[in-house]
């Protein structure tokens, strides 16, 4: 049940970001969760409701964007979506590949807030492992 720890970390960074922006209340928290992140959606939602009590995030809606796994195949020189996380193979040629380009995400993406100045913004952190624009998925 590490989702409780993850929810606590989420509340901490979301509260900081909301405060920095002068927000009075957070109404929606948007996160991105990769298929390989080992996070159980329902467990996280359950924990989120508990740990947001008494914070700026109390009552906020949690929206979770699930990110499928994509791997790079050196033979095809392209990125493709994995058909199954039990089988790390290029969807096109079947070659084994461990070069994961997406699917490990566990990110706070955006917040919907009330209050604060329109001009106040939050500088996005650099995400080291965030992929640059990927080629289109193979069919």
């Amino acid at each position: 049940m590490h989702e409780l720890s993850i929810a606590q970390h989420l509340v901490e960074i979301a509260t900081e970001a909301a405060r920095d922006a002068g927000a009075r209340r957070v109404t929606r928290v948007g996160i991105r969760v990769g298929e390989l992140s080992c996070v159980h959606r329902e467990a996280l939602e359950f924990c989120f409701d508990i740990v947001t009590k008494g914070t700026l995030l109390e009552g906020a809606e949690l929206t979770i964007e699930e990110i499928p796994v994509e791997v790079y195949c050196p033979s095809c020189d392209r990125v493709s979506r994995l058909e199954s996380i039990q089988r790390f193979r290029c969807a096109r040629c079947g070659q084994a590949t461990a070069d994961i380009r997406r699917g490990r995400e566990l990110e706070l993406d955006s917040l919907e807030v009330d209050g604060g100045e329109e001009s106040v913004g939050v500088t996005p952190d650099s995400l080291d492992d965030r992929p640059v624009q990927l080629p289109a998925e193979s069919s």
Partner: protein
Amino acid sequence: MKPRILQVRTQILKKNDELARAMREAFVAAGVYVVNLVSSPGTGKTRLLQTTLRRLRSRGYDVAAIVGDLETDNDARRLAESGAPVRQIQTHGCCHLEADMVRDHLAGWDWEALDFLFVENIGNLVCPASWDLGESLRIALLSVTEGEDKPLKYPGLFNTADAAILTKLDLAEPCEFDRVAARANIDSVRPGMPVLETSAKTGEGVEEWIEFLCGRRDQFVRSLKKSAPSC
């Protein structure tokens, strides 16, 4: 009033990741090779680590271990029999180790003298996967009593490992354990990952594991251009 949208785009575990990165830099600066052992409960992490600490010490390495458990200090006491300094983290219900828990148990050790630090994680095949502890090497263990398909059931954890060990080889036959299938399943979720086989009870495969560890540490030390006892 129209709600305002803030684009934040931050890792949720940013604080853990930043701390782990700083710890890794400190370990690297001191030349300490840190190995994180992850597996289900009962795979034999402690038993293999006992042997590992003893053998590395007999080769002249300075080793230490930090072991995580929900309750009890049984494992720390078992590991301390090797003569190595050992510390116990009791998480009191938390199902994984986080970087700050490890950091809080590091004070007072002579880092410059240490060659290896082992972190034995909580027995759990899901939760430890998400938490960077500042290690240089993550090892996933799978005992022959657990079945060949564990890697397919827990691909997330096996996928974050740098190498895998099949443990309790002495029980492979009575358990009708299919090594070929187990290796194929590991390769399916983590292509190309080295797989070792050990029995801490009979000693089978343990020297290969020690050689593997020393080899990885030698590479690590070469990258630091620092002298080290040779294997």
